[in-house]
């Protein structure tokens, strides 16, 4: 199911500060002046509105005493946005991809690599795409094992000698095929799985490869809103 952009009309709201329900009253201001609202649910306000208008001012808002045009903004990720002078926000729901990055440095050789990310129920977790040694003594990062993502492709490369070499020199490459990914339990399955918790954990295993102590492995993966 595709998500269409959704437009939200933004409005001001008020909430109580822990003292029970309050009644919010509308404040109608028609002329300049200072307004104190003792006992009311709005704070004292000072109003400084322009005193003259023209037809072209239609739809404008007051900013520090001046009439200015409202603007709009496009939002591509979840966050809190200042709506001052913005009368609408466009939220592109279908673009809600979250990138997860991190690194792991093991104290001892490990047969598996654990990658943990924050998420939410029903997030589609798609793909660990990279882990590499960036501590190579020769300054050349070596791809020791990686999931190369053209979206769906997963390839592991192993270095039998354990010495520094260019990426292309790695002799043993195991193509795990297309349309694959690493599931939470380490199983290579399909190109996606759905997180059922508030986060996810990859446990990356490889039968003949050790994640070596002292090496730093970087990773990147993405979560997508799940499709029905």
């Amino acid at each position: 199911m595709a998500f269409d952009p959704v437009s939200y009309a933004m409005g001001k709201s008020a909430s109580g500060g822990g003292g029970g329900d309050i009644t919010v009253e509308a404040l109608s201001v028609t002329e300049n002046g200072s307004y104190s609202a003792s006992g009311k649910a709005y704070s004292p306000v000072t109003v400084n509105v322009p005193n003259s208008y023209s037809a072209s001012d239609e739809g404008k808002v007051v900013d520090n005493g001046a009439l200015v045009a409202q603007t709009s903004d496009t939002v591509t990720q979840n966050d809190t946005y200042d709506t001052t002078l913005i009368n609408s926000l466009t939220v592109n729901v279908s673009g809600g991809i979250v990138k997860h990055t991190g690194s792991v440095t093991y104290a001892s050789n490990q047969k598996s690599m654990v990658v943990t990310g924050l998420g939410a129920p029903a997030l589609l977790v798609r793909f660990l795409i990279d882990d590499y040694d960036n501590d190579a003594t020769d300054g050349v990062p070596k791809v020791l094992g990686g999931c190369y993502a053209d979206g769906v492709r997963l390839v592991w490369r192993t270095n039998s000698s354990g010495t520094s070499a260019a990426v292309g020199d790695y002799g043993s490459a195991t193509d795990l095929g297309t349309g694959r990914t690493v599931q939470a339990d380490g199983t290579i399955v399909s190109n996606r799985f759905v997180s059922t918790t508030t986060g996810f954990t990859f446990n990356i295993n490889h039968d003949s490869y050790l994640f070596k102590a002292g090496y730093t492995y970087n990773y990147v993966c993405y979560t997508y809103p799940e499709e029905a």
Partner: protein
Amino acid sequence: MRYCKIIDSGYIIAIGTGEGGVEITESEYNTILDIIHNKPAATDTTDYRLKLDLTWEPYEIDPPDPDPDLDDAEALDILLGGDEA
């Protein structure tokens, strides 16, 4: 950036950035990273694991299984006190 360490059974298994593990400061991360990079060299019989006090503890590496192809009948025979095949 969030820094973390991963602890298992009283040992620091790994450090990292990102989610997971126990959050630590960048300073602690760099300290542990330096210690890991200066880990004592392992031998054929001994490796080292990092304790929570950031000292290395030697431990014996398990020798390879001398008879990994023991089948069920042979294993049962051993359990019942018979001779190993």
